[in-house]
């Protein structure tokens, strides 16, 4: 049975050799890959494939790690508005200074969409901010 630690170890094994592998690939996808490489996606189709695969595996491992971590430590799970605040900081959004709007947005978004993510909260909060702005200038 594969474990998360096995996956992490494999991803972090920088010393491993490369191998030639045979992958069934739709012809149109392969053509699209070569076209994207010609357009500058990556130096080669091989690089493009490996980079995309590694990115997908890293995100999968990270997402699974977070879920396992939260299952073991429920208090460590940030609320949606806290993740939205982190995104606002990284985006240099004015919402980084408005945690009140982010908290309100979380409540309102979840009432309509229980599976909302932090970007949904951020967008809702931005709308709240935009609608507040004209009133504030009157």
């Amino acid at each position, binding site marked *: 049975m594969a474990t998360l630690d096995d996956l*992490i170890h494999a991803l972090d094994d920088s010393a491993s050799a490369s191998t030639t592998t045979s992958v069934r690939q739709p012809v149109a996808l392969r053509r699209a890959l070569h076209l994207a490489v010609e357009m500058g996606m990556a130096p080669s189709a091989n690089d493009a494939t490996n980079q995309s695969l590694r*990115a997908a595996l890293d*995100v999968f*491992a990270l997402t699974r790690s*977070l879920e396992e971590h939260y299952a073991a430590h429920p208090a*460590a799970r940030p609320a949606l508005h*806290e*993740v939205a605040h982190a995104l606002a*900081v*990284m985006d240099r959004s004015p919402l980084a200074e408005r945690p009140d709007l982010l908290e309100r947005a979380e409540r309102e978004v979840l009432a309509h969409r229980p599976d909302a993510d932090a970007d949904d909260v951020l967008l809702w909060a931005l709308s709240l901010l935009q609608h507040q702005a004209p009133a504030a200038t009157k």
Partner: protein
Amino acid sequence: MPADHTLVLDNEAAQVLTRVDHPKHRLVLAYVEGRAGRAGRRRVGPSILVPTAVRVEAVLDRRSSSTAALGRMRVRDVALDAERADRAVELRVRAGGSAVDACVAELAASEPGPVTVLTADLTDLPALLAAAGSDALVHRV
């Protein structure tokens, strides 16, 4: 691959990630989770980096089970090679600060896209980043 947002961890942010009992653990996880969500949507890697000099300062040995969170959260080491060392020295000469802060600033300045540095100490980093011509955001955790 398009340049996506990069998160650079300073000493305390890296330490906090490995200590579930730390009062700021949840706060730093919010940044990691934010990066995970965006990276998944944009089909890019999470791009959460730590200079190896920071790990030395923070006493974070990846061979220790107590630091497994760094690997699990896909925090990638960036080693201090000769070129990076020269650039970090140049920054210290121009702006002062500690060797570790200079390594953080050098890394932040060398990343192609937008960068956020999570740090507990705002004393020297802004000046070092300015000396590097970087507009990386320094956020205090």
